Every structure is written in structure tokens, then in C-alpha cells.
């Protein structure tokens, strides 16, 4: 009898441990367990609307996951001139019909909503990370629900945290994880990792995405290519293999034009025709100066402004990828492209894209 009682008690204890705490089935994977690598891509526009070329791209390159920017978290002044932390540039979804049913072509894709947090906002919410976490998670959950985003398995936080904001960001990560659990969401938590953060503490998340782009300082008038430079990446890759967080790697496939005025960064542009010799004079392979006698204020430019064309060339990307792969060793990882825009992706052939993946 005594043994039966002990057996029953043990069974009861085991059963209690096994009972779920939430109404949903939760699958909590240990951090060390990784899913199989999947081709992924970031979507970073404010309107989620895929054209046929983009759908085609997704299909051709067997892309299985989209990292979708949902909104930024910024510190702004409200109408009564008080500072407050609010969501900004919220994604508008147009991949649904009038009844809100998403395009069936999305049904097999996984989505990871991404929230970008500015440092100002992070500093302003220091000490109230739990409140911010609640706001972020609930909003993202509502957005996913309202727009019927399929196959959401994780939430990603994107923040260029530094030494002084590290504690606050890590606290936010912990609170976000707590909130995800309390809402019984089947989400993991991931974070973007920038190259310089490889030498810092590992954030308390399940998984990271190493952003191997914007490696230089875009506002540096003397930089040759701030999007991607092997020389900029090399100093950091030694820490890759020992980094205590599963990492996926994001590579750039975009380009832009940077405007400099009196050697000061003046803005980002696209679509400037720098081959127009009546307006521009080429100074270096990728910089063009507006002529003093340029007769039009095209693109808002002034005489002597400098336009720096920056592109993610295939050779640069593949060189960096090789370096990264060498230093990652046998760590399983996915490769991610930044970002999905049919106008930019025409700069790469299908083979090139596939070789990056």
C-alpha cells in the first residue's frame, strides 16, 4: 500500500509537471536546438505589398521565411509638446482581400515580425522595460492576428544597443520573453546582432541575426562603400565561432545614393542619374560631384554636392560570405538577404542569389 501511494504521488507529480500552464499548446525549444536552415529575406518597407516579380523571386530562390518589419519604436513629441515613446511607421498590409484573407501564396511562408527600437526610446523607457515589452508584444500579436499573418514562430527585436544601453535592452528582452509566455504565444525571441556587438555580452534571446551590412559609417564622406566592406568585417569575424548564441547571417543586396554637402552627410536618395554629364562630374569610381554650373536643382541638389553610389556588389557579398563561413565553422545557420525589393534584386542574377544563400 505504501508503495502504491508513493507511486500514485509520483505519477501525480509528474502529471502536474506535464500539465500545460496555458490553453495553447506550447513548444519551447531549448536554445541549442536549431531548426533546419531556410532561405530568408527581410522586408523593410512600410507597406507590405508584393508584386509578381517579388513573388516570383521568393519562389525561384525557395525562400521560406520573411523577416517583416512591423513598426519602429521612437521617442516623439506629442501635440502637447511632451515626449512619449510611440510606435512609428507601422506596416500597412495589402496582401489581403477585402475580407482580410491573405494571399494564398503566403500561406507556406514563415513570418518573423521585427520591431526596431531606437536608442532614444530605449533610454526613455529605462526602468519600465516591462511596460514597453507589454506594449510591443501585444501590438505585434494584434497585428499578426488582424492581418492573419501565417506561421509566425518568433519575434525579433532590432536595436543598435551600446554599452550604456545594454542593461536596458537585455531587460527588455527578458520582459518580452515573459510577456510572450504569459500570452501563450508560440514564439521564440530573436535579436539582431551587429558586428561590434559580437564582443559584448550575449542578449537573453533564443537566437540572433548577424547584420553583415552597414559595416561602415555611411555619414563618413571618405568611406568608399559603407554598405559592405571586407576590411570593415574582418576585425570582427574572429569572435563568431565562440559567440554563445545561435546566429543566422544577413547579407545586403541593396544599394543607395548618399548625398554629401560640404563634406557633411545630407541625405539618402535613389534614382539619381549620375551618368548625366551635364550635371555630374565623376570624381572616383563611385562618387559624382554636381557641376558648379548645373542649371537645374535636380533631386534637390546644389552645385558642388557629392553623390556617392553605393551598391552591394556580388563580389563583395560573396567575399564577405566566404570569410563569415570560414569563421562560423560547422555552426548551422540560415542566410538572409536584406532586403526584398524587386528594383534592387535585378542587380543580381539568380545564380548569384543562390550562391549567397
Amino acid at each position: 500500500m505504501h508503495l502504491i501511494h508513493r507511486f500514485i504521488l509520483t505519477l501525480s507529480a509528474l502529471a502536474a509537471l506535464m500539465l500545460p500552464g496555458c490553453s495553447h499548446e506550447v513548444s519551447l525549444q531549448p536554445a541549442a536546438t536549431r531548426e533546419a536552415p531556410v532561405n530568408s529575406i527581410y522586408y523593410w518597407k512600410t507597406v507590405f505589398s508584393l508584386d509578381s516579380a517579388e513573388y516570383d523571386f521568393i519562389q525561384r530562390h525557395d525562400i521560406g521565411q520573411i523577416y517583416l518589419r512591423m513598426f519602429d519604436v521612437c521617442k516623439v513629441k506629442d501635440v502637447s509638446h511632451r515626449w512619449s515613446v510611440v510606435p512609428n511607421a507601422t506596416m500597412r498590409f495589402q496582401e489581403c482581400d477585402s475580407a482580410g484573407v491573405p494571399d494564398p501564396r503566403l500561406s507556406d511562408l514563415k513570418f518573423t515580425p521585427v520591431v526596431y527600437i531606437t536608442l532614444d526610446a530605449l533610454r526613455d523607457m529605462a526602468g519600465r522595460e516591462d511596460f514597453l515589452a507589454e506594449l510591443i508584444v501585444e501590438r505585434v500579436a494584434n497585428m499578426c492576428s488582424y492581418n492573419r499573418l501565417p506561421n509566425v514562430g518568433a519575434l525579433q527585436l532590432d536595436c543598435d544597443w551600446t554599452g550604456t544601453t545594454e542593461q536596458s535592452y537585455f531587460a527588455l528582452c527578458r520582459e518580452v520573453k515573459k510577456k510572450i509566455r504569459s500570452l501563450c504565444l508560440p514564439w521564440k525571441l530573436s535579436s539582431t546582432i551587429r558586428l561590434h556587438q559580437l564582443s559584448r555580452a550575449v542578449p537573453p534571446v533564443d537566437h540572433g541575426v548577424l547584420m553583415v551590412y552597414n559595416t561602415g559609417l555611411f555619414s563618413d564622406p571618405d568611406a568608399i562603400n559603407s554598405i559592405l566592406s571586407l576590411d570593415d568585417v574582418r576585425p570582427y569575424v574572429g569572435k563568431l565561432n565562440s559567440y554563445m548564441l545561435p546566429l543566422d547571417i544577413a547579407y545586403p543586396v541593396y544599394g543607395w545614393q548618399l548625398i554629401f554637402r560640404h563634406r557633411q552627410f545630407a541625405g539618402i536618395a535613389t534614382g539619381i542619374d549620375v551618368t548625366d554629364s551635364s550635371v555630374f562630374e565623376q570624381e572616383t569610381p563611385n562618387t559624382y560631384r554636381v557641376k558648379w554650373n548645373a542649371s537645374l536643382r535636380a533631386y534637390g541638389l546644389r552645385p558642388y554636392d557629392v553623390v556617392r553610389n553605393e551598391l552591394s556588389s556580388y563580389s563583395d557579398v560573396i567575399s564577405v560570405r566566404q570569410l563569415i563561413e570560414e569563421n562560423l565553422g560547422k555552426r548551422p545557420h540560415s542566410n538572409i538577404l536584406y532586403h526584398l525589393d524587386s528594383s534592387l534584386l535585378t542587380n543580381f542574377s539568380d545564380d548569384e542569389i543562390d550562391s549567397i544563400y
Partner: protein
Amino acid sequence: MKLTQFIKYSAVLTIFLQAGSHKAVACGPYYDDIPTPSYFQPLCDYNVDYDRKTENLEQWRALTAHDIPLADIDSVVYKAPLKAFLDSVKAPDSPGSNRFYSYLRNTHDSEAADFLTLAKEIETYRAGLASPWYYPSSRLYMTETDALNGFTDRCLAYGGTRLRDRYGLQAVRALFASRQYERCIATYDSIFADLPADNLFRRMSLDYVTGCMENLGLTKDTDDYYDEAGAVLCIADKEGRLRDRRINVNAPEWIYYIRREIDHIDQEVLWDAAQYYATNKDVANKGDWYYILAYLAGEKFGKNAEARRFVDAALKESFTFNDFAGQAHAYRLKISGRTGDMTTLLDDLRWIESRINSDANDNRFWSRILQNAVYTEWVPTLWDKGRYADMALLCSYADKLGLNYVDSQYGTLSFRLLESLKAKDVAQIGVELQKSTPLYRHLKRHSGLTPDFMNELTGTLAMREGNYQMAVNYLSGVSPRYLEGMNIYNCNYLSRNPFFQSADRVMYCDMAKKPLFREFALDSYRISDCAPDSKLRFARQMLKLDRIARTTQSPDVKAMAQYLYACGHYSSFENCWALTQYWKGEYCGIFYPYMLTLTSRWKLEMPDGKCFTRLFDYERSKCPDYVKSLYGTRFYELMDSDASDEVKAEIEYLAFNLADVCSDYEDTYIAQIIRTHCDGLKDWAVADSDEDE
């Protein structure tokens, strides 16, 4: 040498001093400009829209307890978050607690507490929906709709009457927030159909109903709904509605709007509308519209008599706003002054005095009203009608009760007005002030026009006119105590001898021992001891000198008497100016009633009326030319008289004309004294002697 010192001393220019009944100051006193009060615009910041919140707070007070400060109700109803409210209502009462909470705790007014709880729950939920972080979780808004429907059901379940309109508003709000627009409109219709159009919560609910209609695309009649809601500023053609007489005339927002925009609304349109509504049986507060007519008539169309009739009619009716009623009453005081109609003056003054004395009101505002009405309207009107006594007494009353009053009657406008009159007029005023009518008795309670003041002023003005007999008559009626309180005596403004520019000069030449001086000059010599009755003694001395000059047979006595009289007269405007004036100097800062309008368009409202242009100009006052001229004429006349050379020499000597003494009267005793005692040769030597040197 003594003589030299005397000459040097005497050659010092007279120093002009500020005098008067204030303590002597170098400049000033500085009076504030009197801001012109508004007789029409709302007394709060007139850039603010009509405040329904205040109306709501006042209704809460009427529903609960009349002695609860509005600020306490505001803290609970508007400012307290839900949790803080719930905690505070349950907390034990303590001294110094918010009195609305105390009321809720002590009276157990659960009906009010339950309503406020539900209202705050709804407000908290709606605030969440309005938050930038809000994002719906489903296209059917099921979660939100369910929650808001729950609130709506609780509102509609209220079976009482006391708070029915308030619950109705909350239900409308909840339904609007849940986008159930048709149900929102239907709920409004069912709850508010039998409530009057000016019900505050009906008006507030209409804002949401209008929103529902716009969301449903039913935009054709939204102006009618805005009008009924009192959302005057949302109406596209406000003047059109006024012109067509299609306004919700009992919505307080219309009156507030008209008060604020009176200068921008087409006055003809407003005039016609006001005439219609003032006599319309559906209008609850006809006082508003009669007063609009009065204000337009008086301030825009120049129809003062009509304005007076309209404001009388207004004051028999009710007003939407208490302060508007007050302004109408104040305007009657002003417009009556413009017409000179004194029939309600006493009542109006009693009323305004009660407002000044009341702690609950802004007494500075009512003081300004009084001063504005009296100074800009009553004073010019009464002056033009020659009713000086009424004018002076009323002005003195306003001086005393108004702002800027100083502790002396001699800094006031009433004093300046009186001083601008002739002595006989002021004397007549003094007589009329003895009347004992109800109006005069009331005005005299706060007037500075005491018999002493009037007598002293009359006597001084008489002296200014050279009427010394009249001066003696009135100055002798001033009590010693009053004189002792006057600064011109306390501050040595009458320390100089008006007859002798240097009293020592008389002693030096032993003139005092001469029979001539023993007869009368010694009296003249003794004027300069600054006694309180100096003015009276001076006037008497002048009378005496005049009598001697007219009656004596001796040419010498006559000449000396004439000289001393001329000298005394001149001195009373010059170095002894305090005998005939109260202020003198470059800048006295004498009070002048500059009226500044307190609107965004600051302009100076100068008091109208020529009485103000006749005010004695102290800033440019100096010895009048006629006085100088008269002195000169008299001097030369007596020097041409039959008086002896000795006396003429003495007169020249007293007048500092040493060179003339030595040149024209070289054989006289005085000339000899000068030649043998005066160190400064140039002071007395004739021109030829100067050239020889």
C-alpha cells in the same frame, strides 16, 4: 563781507520742488494706467472656447452639495484615474480631504459613485483605443465591441432619473467607440428625445451623433446637428444661421461665441437676430439678447438712448451666464453716464459697491468698471451740463473706491477737475455738497470732498485769482487740524518770505527799525515761519497792503505798500508757489485717467470731454506770463510815483537792483551802505565804472 554773502545767497536760483500733500519725492507719484474692463467679452481668457467642463462641474455641484468647491469636483470627476478614484472613495475621511470625496464617503451616495466608476472604466478603455499603441486584433473588432457593448448595457440598465442624461452620454460614447453608428444614433434618440435641447449631455452626445452621421455618409444635415449640439465652431456658415434665425438659441455656446466674436460678426445680421430672439417665447434667457442689442446700439451704432432702454429690459430678464448679467448691469452705469440719466445711478452704484466689497468676485474688475464709467462718461457729461457738484462728488467717490487711490485727495482726478474751475464755482460746489439727497449721502460716504478740503481749495484758488478777500473768507474756515496735516506746511514749502527775497537784507540795512517797516512791513516780514495758517496770514497781509496803498496819504508809504503787494503777488506764483498751487515741476506724474482696453487689440481709450483738456497742466506750469507782466507794470508804476528817492532806493535795494540804486539814487542812505559795504563792485557799480576798470 556780509553783504557779499547775502547777494551771493540771494542770487541762487529758486529751486523748484515737488509739493503737495504727499511726502516730497523727486518724481512721481506714478499712477498705473487703468485697464479698461470688458463690458461684453467673457471674463476668462477670451481665446478659449466655451467651457462645457465648467458647466458640468456646476451641475455636479447642484446634484450633490452646493458648498463643494468646483476645483474639488474637477479633481475627482476629470482628473482622478480609475484606480485612484476607487481607492479614494473607500479610504477613511480625514480633515483637509477633497470635499467631493468627503461627500461621497459621508453620504454614501452610491448612485454618483457607481456612475463615476463606470464612466472612468469607459474612459480608460476608450483611452486605450485612442493610444498610439492600440491595434485591433481582428477585423470584426470583436474584443473591443464586446467590451464596449458590456459598458453600453450597464449604462442602459440604469433605471433612475437623476443621472439618466449622464448615463445616456456614456452609452453614446461607448457605441461610437465601437463603431456601431446606427445603434448609437438610435440610443441617442431614445434617451434624449424628451430632454430639453439645452441639456448639457444631450448637446455633448450630439457631437458623437454628428460623427456617426458623417461616418455613415449622412452629411447633409450635420450643420443642424452641430447647431443643436452647440458646436458653434463646427458650423460652416454661422452668420447664415444667425441671419436665417436657425440657431439653437438656448445653447450657451452661441452666447459665448457671440460674446467672444462681437467685433467680427456682421453687426446688422446680429442686430436683426437679437431683435428677433429678444422677444421670442422659446428663448429662455432673453437678457442675453436684450443686452446684445444694448451693446450694439451703444457701442456700434451710437444710439445711446436706445442702448439705455435695451439694457433696462435686459436686467429684467435672465441671462445664460452670471458674469454676462453682471456686465450688463455695469454697462447700464456706463451708458447712463453717456446720456446723463441719473434715475438708476444710486442703485447702480450700490450694486457695484457690493461687487467691489464681495470676496467672491474680482473686486479689481469692478473697481475698474466704476472708474471707467465715471471717468469716461459721467465726468464729461456732467461737466458739459455744468453740474459741477454732481461731477465732483461722483468723481471723488470713484477716486476713493477705484484703483490707484492714494492716501491723499490731492492726487485724484476729482481734485484736478475742481482745480480747473474758478474759485466761485468751487465755492458754489461746496454749498451744493451740503445737500442731503439719498444719492449725495451715499456718495459722501466715500468722498474726499470734506468741508475743510473744499474751503482750503476755494481759498487757494481765490488767491490764485488775486481775490484775497475771498481767500481770507474761505481759508479762515479751514480747521487747524486739517492744515497741520497738509504737506505744504509739514515739509517747509512755505518757509520763504513772499515779500522779501532775503529777509536778512531788511535787517542788515536796519530797515526794520524804520517807522515805515514798523508800521506794516514787519508783519510782512514775519510771514515766513511756515505756520499752518501761512496762506491765511499771507492773504490777510495782502489785503492789508492793498488797503494801506489805497488809503495812505503818504507817497512813501504807498509806494512801499505797493511794492510789497506786487512782490507778494509775484512770489506767490514763483518761489512761494505753494501759496497758490499744489504741485509744480518738470514731471509731477499727476494722475490722468488713461484707459487701456484689455483685449488683444490694445488701444487707448481717452476719456472724452473738453474738461480733460482744461486740466491744469502742472508739467509745463511756471509763473504765468501775466503775473510776471503785472509785477513789472506795478513796479514801474510805483517807481514813477511821487515817493521819495530814499524809499525808491530802498525798493530798488529790496528788489536786488543795486546798480540802479547807486546810479539813480546815489545820494541816498542805501546807496551809501552799498558803496561802503558791498564787496562785489560789479554788483553795484554802474556800467561806465566797469569800463574804466
